[in-house]
């Protein structure tokens, strides 16, 4: 079975510090093409200097249909890639228009992406008439990933001399669209055509597929069979699963079992990865999973369409023994039950990473620094986590994720299951054990 790899996805340049400082611990860095288009110079410079292999996600799904999370209806209006934008010279008036990063991306990809932006409605299967149309789209999207960094460096006189030294991505991602639940069949067919055409182009670097699908992939046999059929037939160099709204911690035993089966079946023909995965997916490396990707803090599950209007979530503290994040108050409330009375027992039973050692030193009360709150502006009505506290939590998580990956790679499945069972036994009488740790049992059973 393969050793599991972990790729870290950088969502914005404010996360650059995390990626750079932990680069040596991870297997690669992933960036969305929309970020590259929003900040081409900074992105090209970052990727040029990046010590790790990198991957550019072409984000083609953003131009397809999506399901509005608030109404559960299919939308073709591409509204989620729009934002309120100031109208020049209009005294602060705004209009809703496409974000410039996606407009630029569509222009770079050409039709049908640019056409979708012009007409203001999503790309559909009908936009891909002939096989030659499909092949053209695949070629453009793959070429974009291959050459984007070099092209950007080339365009700036200061970086032009280094442009030829720019590395290509570690692998390319074929264009892909979200298989939304109302029209699964036609989206599967389109993704199938894009996969086959991309593989036929024989690119100079490996080409991977992304299976971006609703949760039904883990419960509907006919959908799973249809996806498996084209994925296996494509003989792709790698396959990335992105199951929208699938959270390993909340998933049912059936879904987790079906994910395991799906991974095993794909792994027979191609390496398989989870694009937004956590510890359970890492453990699936014993059943063929080659690796996972996730964000900085934490992005272990992702909806295809982000829910708009939510306040910035608190970055919670990741408890490695439980492979899950909880609030600082919840964890502190567990100390007495776990027999944690001082810094050394904390380090022995919860975490001894350099961040925790640096923060807690000899004072257990300093654990509170992971949850510090403040009023970010004088007019703020609710206190929010301080940036420093969020930063501690993120670095702590990344260091622990690398430890988890190494532990999984050096363990057999029996040991991984024992770790889950032992953690449940140790924590079951804590406040978390009341109803938040059931996933440990479900994971353990699903890995048996």
């Amino acid at each position, binding site marked *: 079975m393969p050793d599991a790899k972990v790729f870290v996805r950088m969502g914005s340049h404010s996360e650059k510090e995390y990626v750079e400082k932990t680069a040596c611990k991870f297997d690669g860095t992933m960036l969305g093409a929309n970020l590259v288009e929003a900040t081409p110079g900074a992105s090209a410079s970052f990727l040029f200097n990046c010590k790790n292999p990198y991957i550019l996600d072409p984000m083609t799904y953003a131009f397809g249909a999506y399901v509005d999370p608030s109404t559960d209806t299919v939308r073709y209006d591409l509204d989620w890639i729009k934002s309120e934008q100031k109208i020049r010279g209009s005294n602060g008036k705004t209009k809703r228009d496409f974000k410039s990063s996606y407009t630029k991306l569509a222009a770079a990809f050409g039709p049908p992406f640019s056409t979708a932006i012009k007409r203001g409605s999503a790309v559909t299967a009908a936009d891909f008439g002939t096989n030659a149309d499909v092949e053209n789209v695949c070629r453009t999207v793959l070429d974009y990933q291959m050459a984007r960094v070099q092209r950007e460096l080339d365009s700036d006189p200061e970086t032009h001399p280094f442009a030829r030294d720019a590395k290509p991505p570690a692998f390319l991602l074929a264009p892909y669209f979200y298989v939304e639940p109302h029209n699964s069949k036609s989206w599967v067919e389109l993704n199938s055509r894009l996969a086959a055409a991309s593989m036929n182009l024989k690119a100079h670097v490996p080409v991977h597929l992304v299976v971006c699908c609703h949760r039904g992939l883990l419960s509907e046999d006919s959908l799973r069979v249809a996806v498996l059929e084209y994925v296996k037939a494509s003989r792709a160099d790698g396959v990335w699963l992105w199951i929208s709204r699938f959270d390993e911690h909340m998933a049912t035993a059936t879904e987790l079992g079906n994910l395991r089966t799906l991974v095993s079946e794909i792994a027979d023909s191609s390496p398989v990865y989870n694009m937004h995965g956590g510890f359970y997916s890492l453990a699936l490396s014993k059943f063929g999973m080659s690796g996972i990707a996730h964000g900085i803090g934490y992005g272990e599950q992702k909806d295809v369409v982000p829910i708009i209007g939510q306040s910035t979530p*608190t970055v919670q503290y990741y408890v490695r023994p439980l492979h899950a994040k909880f*609030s*600082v*108050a*919840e964890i*502190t*409330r567990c100390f*007495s039950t776990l027999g944690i009375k001082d810094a050394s027992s904390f380090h022995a039973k919860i975490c001894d990473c350099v961040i925790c050692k640096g923060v807690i030193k000899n004072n257990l*009360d300093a654990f*509170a620094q992971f*949850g510090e*709150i403040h009023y970010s502006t004088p007019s703020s009505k*609710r*206190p929010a*986590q301080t940036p420093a506290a969020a930063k501690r939590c993120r670095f702590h998580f990344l260091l622990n994720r690398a430890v988890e990956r190494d532990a999984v790679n050096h363990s057999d499945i029996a040991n991984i299951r024992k770790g889950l069972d032992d953690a449940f036994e140790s924590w079951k009488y804590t*406040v978390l054990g*009341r*109803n938040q740790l059931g996933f440990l049992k479900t994971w353990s059973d699903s890995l048996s």
Partner: protein
Amino acid sequence: MTKSLIAEKKFFKEAQLLSPVAQYAKKRGFRLQLAEVPFYEYRIDLYGFSKSENATVAIELKLRDWGRALEQAMLYQLCSDFVYIAMPEDAANRVEIAQLEKEGVGLIAVQNTGECQCILSAQLHQEVRSFYRGHQIEYLRENARA
């Protein structure tokens, strides 16, 4: 049945429990008090301090879900000497008292008339951490008036 319907109609928002419960806590000596006191990402519905007893109280208001209220109450034990759940009388009658008793969490029933009745007294417990308690009292002094 009629009584139950009246009770549920009377209290259809947690905020409606605040005033009677705050009065009740004041009578018990927790004169310095404040609603919605931040504690990490949580907000304690009512937090009070009794200068004469040098004691703090945290009260979680809930209309129905006492299990969730107990989980929150247990967290508030980190910063408060006494912790209560306050619910409409009918809902309070459905609480598994033994579970609250085991954790040292008290229960207040709020009657339709606005009268409060202590069903179970909160116990002094070992979970309170002086670090958090001190912070909460300081916050109370800065933001509340007796």
